[in-house]
């Protein structure tokens, strides 16, 4: 088979992969050691393989690795530096939102994408953001509580408030 080379960014680091033309992104990520990307149904239903592609959740089991060329990927390994935890991960621990943990990386990534888009989401928005990740043990109650708590605890955006902007005019 004819090997191809792709250049991309994974967790902030430039990567050069030699891949087969028919390789799926999930397979290459796991081969490269990103084991936080879970192999689940492999038909796009369970969402355990979710990664952030340019900041948005996609199922890596349905994407060809060649399509990741020039793109930016984030896996659970990259949500916080070193041994530090992302606020959503902290909240998952505090709220007992993890049991077997298989769906947790995908849930954390979907939550992170949501909070970046909508820093103070409603419960309905949180549930919608998790609806593409199937959990078969913890359920959704505690993950939803954890994500809402993480949003509440987050420092308010540093931009000037509308009132201050008005006052300056």
């Amino acid at each position, binding site marked *: 088979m004819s090997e191809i080379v792709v250049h991309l960014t994974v967790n902030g680091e430039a990567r050069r992969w030699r891949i087969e*033309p*028919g390789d*799926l992104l999930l397979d290459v990520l796991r081969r490269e050691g990103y084991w936080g990307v879970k192999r689940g149904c492999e038909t*796009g239903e369970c969402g355990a393989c979710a990664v952030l592609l340019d900041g948005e959740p*996609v*199922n890596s089991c349905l994407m*060809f690795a060649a399509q990741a060329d020039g793109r930016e990927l984030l896996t659970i390994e990259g949500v916080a530096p070193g041994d530090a935890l992302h606020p959503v991960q902290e909240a998952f621990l505090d709220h007992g939102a993890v049991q077997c943990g298989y769906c947790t990386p995908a849930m954390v990534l979907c939550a992170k994408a949501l909070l970046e888009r909508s820093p103070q989401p409603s419960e309905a928005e949180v549930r919608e953001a998790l609806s593409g990740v199937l959990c078969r043990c913890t359920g959704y109650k505690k993950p939803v509580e954890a994500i809402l708590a993480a949003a509440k605890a987050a420092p308010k955006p540093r931009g000037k408030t509308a009132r201050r902007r008005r006052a300056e005019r």
Partner: protein
Amino acid sequence: MFDRIRAFHRPTSVAQALRLFEAERRRGGRGRWVAGGTDLVVQRERALRWLVDLTRLPLGYVRRVRGGFVIGATTRMADIEHSKPLLGFADGILPEAASTCGSQQIRNMATIGGNLANASPACDLAPPLLALDASAVIAGRGGRRIVRLDRFFRGVNRTALNGGLLVEIVVPAPPKAAATGWSCQKLGRLQSDIAIVNAAAGVALDARGYCTWARIALGAVATTPLRARGAEALLVGRRLDRTAVEAAAEQAAAEAKPVTDVRGTADYRRAMCRVLVARALEECARHAGRTL
């Protein structure tokens, strides 16, 4: 899974994509276009030898044109779902349909072109696009041709593409009228599931509430998405009231040719087709400012 694929082409223009596709086709071996991959990968076609990727083509756009829209084929479901201009067009039936096309991750990958070209009888965007009289623009060796969507679907997973590339969808301006109303309905186990039955409708009413134009489109009740032309004809010239809605829903169900599968029996589908069309027309009336 796709270990027999020997080439994955990544063109950046439509012309280049067509050249690559044609060269591969002459060389032989099974190959396909691919965009979001959410249907193609799941179909697990092991015989595939080559793919031409469309995600680098400049076909991700929603443009307003003369009261209607042109939507690029690789525009993702998520982009349609959140498109402000589309949310304000035809009571937002296109974003509404797109928002039910699988999970968030799927909608971040799946494209409008893939949704149509896959030609599933349950295709999420087909009923609203049929109700809007949309057409497909297809690029091929001989240039571009336009195929009305009601002639685009030819069977389960079969289309009028014939090796051509679906490049954009044209949605014409809806008819001018005193009032218009649109609706899109879907029945699935969950909102994001594949439809057991789906439907869309659009009506134009004159100042007295008489129907001057009507479209009723059905999905998952035949080998292709289809228009219920008999039911449409029944509405035109009539006042849009409860009796007319019931008669049209009955007629639409009679035009359906459903099959029995794991998601529902033919009888259930036909019964639900009547229910969804009635709901769609009731909502159209509401959106057009009428109480039934």
